[in-house]
């Protein structure tokens, strides 16, 4: 495998180019002219794209079972020994790149769409402040997204995962003077963090179970010298240490999926994405709705070997996916902000992808991820072009009839709409059909999957309805544009129009990779991805699909088309033929309409259940801190000390001192008569001497006399 060639052995350059460019922007951007910024930022992503293409072509040239290339740059986190189910292991997470069919698809999608976004942005942001800063963020985002998809282990993937979260935060809050933007950025970060906590616990469980977080040891020069999750998993299953459906698999899968619901905006952590539309431009909106959100899908696909062994988790993924798909699609029906409609559409389509993953159709999920990236990017960029030409107007109620005024935008936009709704021949049709087909096949084996298939069909109908509504409201019918801005309508510059055309092209043809399905063969896309998604060896419990005849296949396609047509027909009736009809409809079901307009009150419910409760807790604990610990305990201790000192002072004064004083008083009392004489005054003493002398003389006078007499 030494003949890996330049592109494979320089895989690390793919994320490196945008990183360098981002660093240049952050350090010197302020002083650089716009052209230099363009050169660095667009050029670096283009270089990444070229390297990604080169690596992909090289990979293609290899036989199918050797299409894995891995390189380890250096050992990154080496914290020491860790107990695992197979004994003590020195945990090592390296900094390395892995290119296999799965990451190949992701890298191409990310660099290609990313490149077009960059080109488009040079036009869109031309007159905005902070030009270099915006491009710095974009490049920084590319670095993290590419690190995410090229990572050879789960911990490095987490770096990219958190990094794109950070860039979301920066891009959403790009105009940091606006409070709503800052709030939205913060919300995105924190909601994602909640998911990340799940991700991190899942990662720790992976490490503790398999002793490594490296996805696979394939593709390394000496695979036996390194461990990989896939290899550990295979040997554990082979040795019957862990079996299909083991609770550890379910736990890992659910924890990682919880992380994915955060990043991919699925129930219950979907609430950040619509707010993320606060981002200054459709560009940043697009980054969230097309790129960031696919990270969750990628994660589940990347860990598909474990998910396949956790049927309960798979069912939950499918149920959450299908529910989110319908849930978000219904909200999209009534929103009026063009970016928000597209955001809810993204949530819904992401749900679709998770439905695919959940029923075991990993390749179909990734296929939809790819086609969706093209047509949803086109929709966002088209919407941006509309907003640009209307000088910032985002409310579709104030649009209409733009089809002829801005044809370079409207034609690609129409193509994208046809693609996302699943009109036969365009990309969305094929990927939708793949997902629904697999859900139906699953149902053939297990009855309960019928509901998922039905939900999928309903979503297809709803998608058709809200997308055609958007199309009709924006580009068809009467213009509702305020007269004063009517005159300013202008077509977008070439830098914006050309990316639209390129994306339109791929929105049509990218689905054709599944064309052979039409004559009953396996989709080549699926066949290409198969080695990455194969999982470990099949056993009794593994996922199986029923097989249907070509006739059933056509019937399923017809069913899909029927729902699409139904949606189209409703949209046509409600918004184009009789534009007043939909307002009447809304008025006749005010409760339902309100529920949808308010997004099922999820934000309000979360505020009431969590956000405000944590604030209350914070107030309560702050009170506890100052009043109980400091107040009661410390001041109480202080009071006790003071009280004790007062008691001891009293004791000192009235007992100890009193006793001493009494003892002192006693001789004092006894000595009182003596002290009366000790006046210290000489004359007094003289008097006392005289008195004494007198008394002596009085008492002993006769002796003196007798004595005197004897002398004589």
């Amino acid at each position, binding site marked *: 495998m030494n003949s890996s060639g330049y592109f494979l052995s320089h895989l690390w350059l793919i994320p490196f180019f945008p990183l360098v460019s981002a660093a240049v922007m952050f350090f010197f951007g302020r002083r650089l002219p716009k052209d230099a910024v363009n050169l660095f930022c667009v050029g670096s992503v283009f270089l990444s794209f070229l390297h990604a293409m080169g690596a992909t072509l090289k990979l293609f040239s290899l036989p199918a079972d050797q299409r894995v290339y891995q390189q*380890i740059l*250096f050992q*990154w*986190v*080496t*914290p*020491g*020994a*860790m*107990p695992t189910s*197979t*004994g*003590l*292991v*020195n*945990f*090592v997470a390296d900094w390395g790149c892995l290119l296999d069919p799965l990451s190949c698809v992701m890298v191409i999608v990310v660099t290609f769409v990313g490149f077009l976004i960059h080109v488009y942005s040079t036009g869109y942001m031309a007159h905005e402040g902070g030009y270099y800063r915006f491009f710095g963020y974009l490049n920084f985002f590319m670095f993290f997204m590419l690190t995410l998809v090229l990572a050879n282990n789960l*911990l490095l993937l*987490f*770096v990219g995962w*958190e*990094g794109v979260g*950070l860039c979301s*935060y920066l891009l959403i809050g790009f105009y*940091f*003077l*606006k*409070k709503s933007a*800052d*709030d939205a950025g*913060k919300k995105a*970060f*924190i909601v994602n*963090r909640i998911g*990340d*906590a799940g991700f*991190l*616990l899942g990662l*720790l*469980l992976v490490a*503790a179970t398999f*002793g*490594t977080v490296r996805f696979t040891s394939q593709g390394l020069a000496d695979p*036996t*010298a*390194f*461990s990989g999750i896939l290899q550990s998993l295979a*040997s554990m299953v082979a*040795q019957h*240490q862990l079996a299909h459906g083991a609770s550890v698999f379910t736990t890992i899968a659910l924890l990682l999926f919880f992380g994915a619901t955060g990043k991919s905006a699925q129930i219950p952590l979907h609430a950040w994405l619509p707010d993320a539309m606060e981002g200054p431009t459709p560009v940043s909106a697009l980054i969230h709705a097309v790129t960031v959100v696919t990270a969750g899908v990628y994660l589940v696909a990347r860990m598909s070997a474990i998910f396949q062994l956790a049927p309960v988790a798979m069912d939950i993924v499918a149920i959450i996916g299908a529910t989110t798909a319908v849930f978000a699609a219904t909200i999209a029906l009534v929103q009026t902000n063009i970016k928000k409609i597209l955001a809810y559409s993204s949530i819904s389509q992401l749900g679709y992808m998770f439905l695919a993953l959940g029923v075991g159709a990993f390749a179909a999920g990734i296929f939809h991820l790819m086609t969706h990236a093209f047509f949803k990017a086109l929709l966002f960029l088209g919407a941006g072009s509309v907003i640009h030409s209307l000088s910032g107007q985002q409310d579709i109620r104030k649009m209409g009839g733009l089809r002829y005024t801005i044809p370079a935008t409207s034609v690609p936009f129409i193509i994208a709409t046809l693609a996302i709704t699943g009109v036969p021949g365009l990309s969305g049709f094929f990927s939708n059909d793949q997902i629904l087909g697999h859900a139906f096949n699953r149902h053939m084996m297990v009855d309960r999957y019928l509901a998922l298939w039905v939900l999928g069909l309903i979503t297809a109908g709803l998608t058709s309805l809200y997308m055609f509504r958007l199309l009709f409201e924006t580009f068809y019918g009467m213009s509702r544009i305020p007269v004063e801005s009517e005159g300013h309508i202008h077509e977008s510059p070439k830098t914006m129009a050309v990316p639209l055309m390129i994306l339109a092209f791929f929105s049509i043809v990218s689905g054709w990779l599944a064309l052979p399905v039409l004559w009953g063969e396996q989709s080549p896309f699926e066949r290409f991805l198969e080695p990455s998604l194969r999982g470990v060896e099949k056993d009794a419990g593994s996922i199986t699909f029923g097989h249907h005849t070509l006739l059933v296949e056509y019937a399923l396609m017809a069913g899909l088309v029927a729902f699409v047509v139904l949606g189209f027909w409703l949209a046509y009736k409600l918004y184009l033929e009789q534009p007043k009809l939909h307002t009447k409809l809304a008025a006749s079901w005010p409760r339902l309409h309100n529920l949808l307009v308010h997004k099922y009150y999820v934000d309000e419910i979360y505020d009431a259940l969590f956000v405000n409760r*944590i604030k209350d*807790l*914070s107030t309560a*604990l*702050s009170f506890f*801190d100052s009043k109980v*610990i*400091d107040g009661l*305990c*410390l001041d109480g201790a202080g009071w006790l000390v003071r009280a004790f000192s007062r008691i001891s002072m009293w004791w000192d004064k009235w007992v100890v001192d009193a006793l001493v004083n009494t003892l002192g008083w006693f001789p004092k009392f006894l000595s009182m008569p003596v002290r009366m004489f000790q006046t210290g005054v000489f004359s007094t003493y003289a008097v006392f001497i005289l008195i004494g002398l007198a008394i002596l003389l009085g008492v002993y006078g006769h002796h003196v006399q007798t004595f005197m007499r004897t002398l004589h």
Partner: protein
Amino acid sequence: MEHSSNHLLSVILFTPLVGALLLLFIPRESQNLHRLVGNLFGVLGFIASLSLLIHFPAGSAGYEFKEAADWIPSIGARYSLGADGISVLLVMLTTLLGMLAIASSWSAIQQRTKEYYILLLLLQTGMLGVFLSLDFFLFYVFWEVMLVPMYFLIGVWGSERRLYAAIKLFLYTLAGSVIMLLAILALYFNYAKTLPQGAMGTFDIPTLLAAAQQFPDSLKTWLFWGLFFAFAVKVPMFPFHTWLPDAHTEAPTAGSVILAGIVLKMGTYGFLRFSLPLLPTDAALRAKIIHMVIALSLISIIYGAVVCLRQKDTKRLLAYSSVSHLGFCTLGIFALTPQGLAGSVLQQINHGISTGALFLLFGVLYERRNTSLICEFGGLATPMPNFAAIYLIISLSSLGMPLLNGFIGEFTILQGVFSVSKTWAAWASVGIVLGAAYLLWLYQRTMLGPITHEANKSLPDLNPREYAVLLPLVALAFWIGIYPRPFFAYLEKPVQRIVQQVNPAFYQLTTSPSRTSSISFSSPTSNPVSPN
């Protein structure tokens, strides 16, 4: 060993003290000379400690650069120093933050500069002594010595309620220390009892801790709790933490930096160095004690973070965030696994870097606006874009963004804890979510949005001296985040030694049904120790 003739540790330890002595002879009017000498000895101290890094033998598990001399022979107290990988990192942190703290005071301190720098340098020696002592008596002396300058730094150069804060700090810590002294004496006398009649007792730390292994569990338990309070107050652990918010709010910037960056680590250092070997042998009793400490750690993590959300003062908020972060450190220590311990020490370094830098940043604002209230700021990213950028990086490092230092520490701790109890790890991860919440909230309130105060409109951005103080910390944050291996290399062996001593069962896990060899680091399913 060979290094015994070398007096490197003494040089490192007393360089600041020499500076303090020198300052005594400088007249009080020459303020710039005080600053110069203070900074000079800050830098010298750091340079001296660099040689520790260079000469420290790779892969050493024990104490190196040992020095010993008789000090008070009548009681067996000796002047005895030594450093293992853990101490080396903490000493480096101390000299680095000490140097930066001194540098940050250049224009912030205008009064009594002579006394100020003398106290800072004295404090530096006290803290280094704690991390370097191999004699319990010496350790205790340094432990108490550093309290005095800290008391005066807060009490003299602090803001309005400085006296309250200083006395609170003093009393809190002293209460813990007194119990610790009793525990040390109990260790000393119980060891002396085991000696033959007439033999002299010793305060030698390795000897005493090794001897303590043979003590009955009841005695060990008493000794453990005796030391526990001193360390828990220093860390500080819930519910012994309320001195910290006051001390931080009132302390001058350099005081806060040193307090958060180094002083708190003396508590965690004490835990891992002295408390762990005193854990009782009886499994049930031991588990009970560990569970209590872990519970306090988890409460600290969540409690500190939740209380942060309601703070009005930046420094107070950072103080509570320290309680939360240090909760991670104690959690890692009492997981008793190599990863938990290594992660804990690394996180102590990380906290010193991140929170130290945050205090420096708010010191920059304090110097310009003379306030630390959150509501006084807002929209500062407009006048001070470079400040805002560095502050964002440091916030991210504090909240555990990958590629920055905090993530490596938190992840390693979580991994070490996870292998013991998944529940503990799950609770700790709540702290990670809340950490993002309060740090981003603080960032938004101070940096983003429109400018709300006239006075903030024309605030100057960072000046060269401020860059010089902040950028080393930013660089370190990236270094540890991107390439933490050198740091782990210092910790690997000492940590292994501690775990072998206090949790020998850990290494017996190796013999699992599928593997019969002993520690099989290079077996096929495990990761190889070195890339070949």
